[in-house]
């Protein structure tokens, strides 16, 4: 059966036909898009509580009514993992919230996470029919989050059924979204899964990177708890390639390995003064604050508390860093970005929230030097003013320096957030892997299989810094392909 046929079957179920007819499309289109309930900007910029509070059931059902339940749901094309969006939304409209969560889980391993962190405005919501009618798109992300949260809070969270254990040992390197979703699917198929994690916490960027005010750890922990209940083993503080090698994994009887080691290496700009005290990567800053809990009196880990903080970059990591600085007490916290706001890769909601929290956004500026005091602490940054030129290969306008236009601004902390590179450890210690010039592992795009037949890879180690949903999709695709491959080998 084709995907189209499957969609049609579900769309033509009697309850759904009836629901669709219960309100006229024209009336559905006139409903205003829901506003997310948020904490007050002033209050939240002094605490770590989650900013978005979620929708109430009434709000969610009303928003669900806006969805026209299109015969050709273009929103699904915008979703990297093709979640059956109209089906889950119509369950919400019908008040079947647990049913909605179930639909989400057919495709997404981490809906509560994706509902919070996906760039919906560039994915599903960018393809919503309402936009063609000059209306605001259905709030698909809010609804996804609503259904997932409802399920979790209801106490009826379902533990997926697992097949009879087949005794085949599979190793997963890294416990970010790619590794977790792979582990979940393989556990369902009956494999004996061990996830190896270098850090002392499970969750990858979801734990050490994305702050509590955007993605509470509790939500990630629930997902991890489910995997544990499904029999997945986790081994923290174990670095594959260091603590144990590829050969050790073979000798220990692992028949397949999924590498999901992420893109954890911070990039620097290599400009003068970058090693001054007070200049650091966003990885260092966020790791100290999120993973090590620095900033809390009980924590042994220190973090510099800047009063005038500049964050260099325009992505989600930059937004997370600058908003964290604000929460830690910065009086002035600013984003310094070399292009215009239009080109910023961060989610629009994060930029909006940041502005509400008093973050300054300095676009078309690029740091060229940091200046320190006698003790080597950063005290100023020199910024080159930029203008937008012709679009480059990425389609974004290339920033060009305006000659002689240089500005100096006082700062006492600078957080460099200009991107990350793939973690080189696995590529350099697993002999025979094919690696691109960017250091990413080269895989077959449909199976995620690498040049070494028993090794599959996905997430940021394959894509460079990408997104949670893509990492999760890779994990699921790799699980399906590895399962098929192992079944053929074992039952020829």
């Amino acid at each position: 059966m084709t995907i189209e046929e499957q969609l049609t079957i579900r769309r033509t179920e009697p309850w759904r036909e009836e629901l669709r007819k219960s309100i006229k499309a024209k009336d559905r289109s006139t409903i205003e898009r829901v506003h997310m309930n948020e904490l007050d900007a002033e209050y939240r910029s002094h605490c770590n509580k989650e900013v978005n509070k979620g929708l109430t059931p009434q709000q969610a059902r009303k928003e669900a009514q806006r969805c026209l339940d299109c015969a050709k749901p273009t929103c699904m094309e915008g979703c990297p993992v093709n979640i059956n969006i109209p089906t889950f939304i119509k369950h919400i409209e019908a008040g079947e919230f647990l049913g909605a969560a179930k639909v989400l889980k057919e495709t997404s391993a981490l809906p509560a996470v994706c509902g919070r962190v996906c760039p919906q405005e560039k994915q599903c919501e960018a393809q919503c029919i309402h936009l063609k009618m000059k209306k605001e798109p259905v709030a698909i992300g809010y609804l996804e989050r609503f259904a997932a949260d409802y399920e979790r809070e209801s106490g009826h969270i379902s533990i997926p059924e697992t097949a009879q254990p087949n005794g085949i040992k599979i190793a997963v390197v890294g416990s970010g979204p790619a590794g977790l979703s792979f582990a979940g699917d393989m556990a369902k198929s009956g494999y004996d899964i061990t996830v190896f994690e270098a850090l002392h916490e499970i969750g990858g960027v979801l734990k050490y990177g994305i702050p509590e005010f955007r993605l509470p750890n509790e939500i990630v922990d629930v997902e991890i708890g489910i995997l544990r209940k499904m029999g997945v083993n986790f081994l923290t503080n174990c670095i594959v390639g260091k603590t144990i090698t590829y050969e050790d994994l073979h000798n220990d009887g692992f028949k397949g390995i999924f590498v999901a080691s992420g893109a954890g290496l911070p990039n620097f700009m290599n400009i003068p003064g970058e090693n001054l005290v007070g200049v650091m990567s966003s990885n260092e800053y966020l790791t100290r604050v999120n993973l090590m809990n620095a900033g809390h009196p009980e924590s042994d880990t220190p973090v510099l508390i800047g009063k005038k903080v500049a964050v260099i970059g325009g992505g989600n990591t930059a937004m997370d860093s600058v908003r964290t600085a604000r929460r830690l007490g910065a009086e002035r916290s600013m984003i310094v970005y070399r292009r215009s706001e239009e080109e910023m890769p961060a989610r629009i909601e994060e930029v909006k929230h940041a502005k509400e929290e008093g973050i300054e956004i300095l676009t078309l500026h690029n740091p060229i030097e940091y200046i320190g005091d006698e003790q080597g602490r950063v005290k100023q940054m020199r910024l080159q003013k930029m203008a937008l030129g012709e679009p480059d290969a990425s389609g974004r306008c290339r920033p060009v320096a305006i000659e002689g236009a240089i500005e100096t601004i006082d700062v006492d902390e600078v957080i460099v957030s200009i991107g990350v590179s793939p973690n080189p450890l696995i590529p350099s210690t697993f002999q025979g892997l094919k690696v691109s010039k960017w250091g990413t592992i080269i895989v077959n795009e449909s199976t995620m299989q690498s040049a070494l037949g028993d090794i599959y890879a996905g997430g940021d180690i394959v894509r460079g810094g990408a997104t949670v949903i893509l990492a999760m999709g890779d994990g699921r695709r790799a699980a399906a392909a590895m399962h098929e491959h192992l079944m053929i080998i074992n039952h020829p």
Partner: protein
Amino acid sequence: MNKIVSKEYFSANVVKLEVEAPLIARSRKAGHFVIVKIGKNGERIPLTIAGADLGKGTITLVIQAVGGSSKKICALNVGDEITDLVGPLGQATHIEKTGTVVCAGGGVGVAPLMPIVEAFHKAGNRVIVVLAARTKELVILEEQMRVNSDEVIIMTDDGSYGTKGLVTDGVESIINRERVDLCVTIGPAIMMKFVSALTKKYDIPTVASLNTIMVDGTGMCGACRITVGGKTKFVCVDGPEFDAHQVDFDEMLMRLSAYKDIEKK
């Protein structure tokens, strides 16, 4: 996991711990280090792996209590567990038979110097250790060093023990009396800076093991970065050992003081 199986005091504030860590014991080499964290709210701090027992599946750590986290570890007892222990990290020491090796250590550097002294001695080198301290009470690991080397020279700032003078005076006295093929130095950055300047004058290849501030220890954060030969390096993955003559010690000194005010609190 990571249970402490033996504990020995080398001095009032230097402790040797033998810890269960079978995977690390199997994979570690001289010069590697681990990151440890005590308790849920503990800090991640780097410690050199001083030795390993494959049969018992244990590694040895020698820790000098200098501040909050190192004191916490030194206070652990046999039967306690180290909450988190990860490694082996960093590049292994390049150990070969080169001839006469001078190992100069002081302060926090003496503990991590131990396994290196031992490895060079085992490789058949003539090993001369220079231990420096402010005063007699602060001289540590002297006995252990003697067992693993050909000679130990003690230098104290106040002359209360050994010879009065700085670590550099000790090293220079050796250079003046015999041929030195390699110098290894671990200690406070200021000490390594001066040892390096001295050996550069005499053109003696010198390795410094840099004890920078670290967080993850796996190359993920850049807290440990320093400049070597004009290029930024991450001590935890590219080091901890570097050609001392290429290291920008002034920058390192500055970076080490980053959290001084906070840690003092």
